[in-house]
């Protein structure tokens, strides 16, 4: 049976680039088909009925038509615009960071409804409290989880013994936490404080709303951020580009933390 010519889907817009005179090539993450790139014909004309429906960080219901090379967006209707998030520069920068990670971890033609929901929940949490970094930490850990890369937080990845309540070490490429007795030769090995391990376990077991109530002190926040973003960028295989603008905004608002 031939596939249907048109289909509907829900998607989060990740970004777009201009294509030819008036078209856009839109990158989105759909609930049912993972990452999709599709053409929005005429969308750069101000009279297009697609204008304004395809801005990044918007949840959209789409009607799509199968094209010869790429699918064509025939209709788009905004389901959730996160309009408050888009009034706040820091929140936008955080949203762009999330979009870059979903673009990097999401695969084409491979559904990952967990990642779809995680992105929406995290955008909601950033919108609710743009000053907190906990939504990003929650996102990073659960991004690893829904991608099948969840770091081990309960047993030593080397000797498999249950971890004692103590300081440990962590290695992104060995798959998580190591006890102090195991000392493999690994360039990525880094110290992991007991309180950081506790927060990671809590993020693992909690819902996002609960996780975002945590407000770790500056030292702990910096440890979590460094550990999770290093792990995420290790698996991504490249630097996260939007991180540097986010860091810059952070430095401007808390100059004392980053000397």
């Amino acid at each position: 049976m031939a596939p249907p010519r048109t289909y509907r889907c829900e998607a989060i817009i990740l970004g777009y680039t201009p294509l030819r005179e008036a078209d856009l090539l839109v990158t989105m993450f759909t609930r049912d088909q993972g990452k999709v790139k599709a053409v929005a014909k005429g969308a750069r004309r101000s009279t297009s009925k697609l204008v304004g429906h395809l801005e990044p960080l918007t949840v959209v219901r789409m009607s799509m038509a199968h094209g010869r090379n790429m699918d064509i967006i025939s209709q788009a209707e905004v389901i959730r615009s996160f309009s408050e998030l888009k009034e706040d520069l820091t929140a936008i920068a955080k949203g762009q960071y999330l979009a870059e990670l979903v673009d990097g971890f999401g695969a084409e033609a491979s559904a990952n409804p967990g990642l779809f929901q995680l992105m929406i929940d995290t955008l909601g949490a950033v919108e609710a409290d743009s000053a907190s970094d906990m939504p990003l930490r929650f996102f990073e850990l659960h991004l690893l989880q829904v991608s099948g890369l969840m770091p081990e937080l309960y047993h030593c990845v080397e000797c498999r013994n249950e971890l004692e309540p103590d300081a440990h070490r962590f290695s992104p490429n060995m798959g998580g936490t190591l006890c102090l007795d195991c000392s493999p030769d690994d360039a990525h090995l880094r110290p992991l404080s007991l309180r950081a391990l506790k927060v990671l376990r809590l993020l693992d077991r909690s819902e996002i709303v609960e996780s975002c109530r945590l407000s770790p002190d500056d030292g702990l926040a910096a440890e979590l951020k460094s550990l999770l973003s290093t792990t995420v960028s290790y698996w991504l295989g490249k630097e996260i580009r939007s991180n540097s603008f986010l860091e810059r905004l952070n430095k401007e608002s808390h100059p004392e933390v980053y000397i």
Partner: protein
Amino acid sequence: MARLVQELNRLPGIGPKSAQRLAYYIIRLPDEDAYALADAVTSVKQNIVYCEGCQNLTDASPCQICADPRRDRTILCVVEDPLDVLAMERTRSFRGLYHVLHGVISPINGIGPDQLKLKELFIRVADAEVTELVVATNPTLEGEATAMYIRRHQGRDDLKITHLARGLPVGGSLEYSDETTLSRAFQGRQEI
């Protein structure tokens, strides 16, 4: 020939087929026309500079607009790129000066504030002669974020900062407008 096709293919909006068509067209041109084209490309690279005022591309700095004594020097209009200056000039409704950013902040593409002409903008804005800044970036997520960044970093508390009205496009319809456009159009409503 392959090299020409390859170079043309790198131009925005030119796919491999169009590049081939253009290459054949160039090959069939009379010699003097082809050399005139090549010369225009070379001389544009040799002679075009950024205007010391507005940062627009110009063959003489300051550019015609910045050098024009009839323009209002108290108001600066910030745009994303040189084509926006042309579009604004066609309306003949703005008599101030421009400032061209040459892009917008786009963290995902590695474009931060330092890759744009923002430092130059903040130096111009520090001059007390400037009393109003019209931020005319596009009403996209990145355009809006750039506008917010400018508002936060311009460094003066006595500067009037305005935005172009965000509203419904001429020829657009309420039915197809997204909620952000509609609510902004409502906020920017005018007496008739």
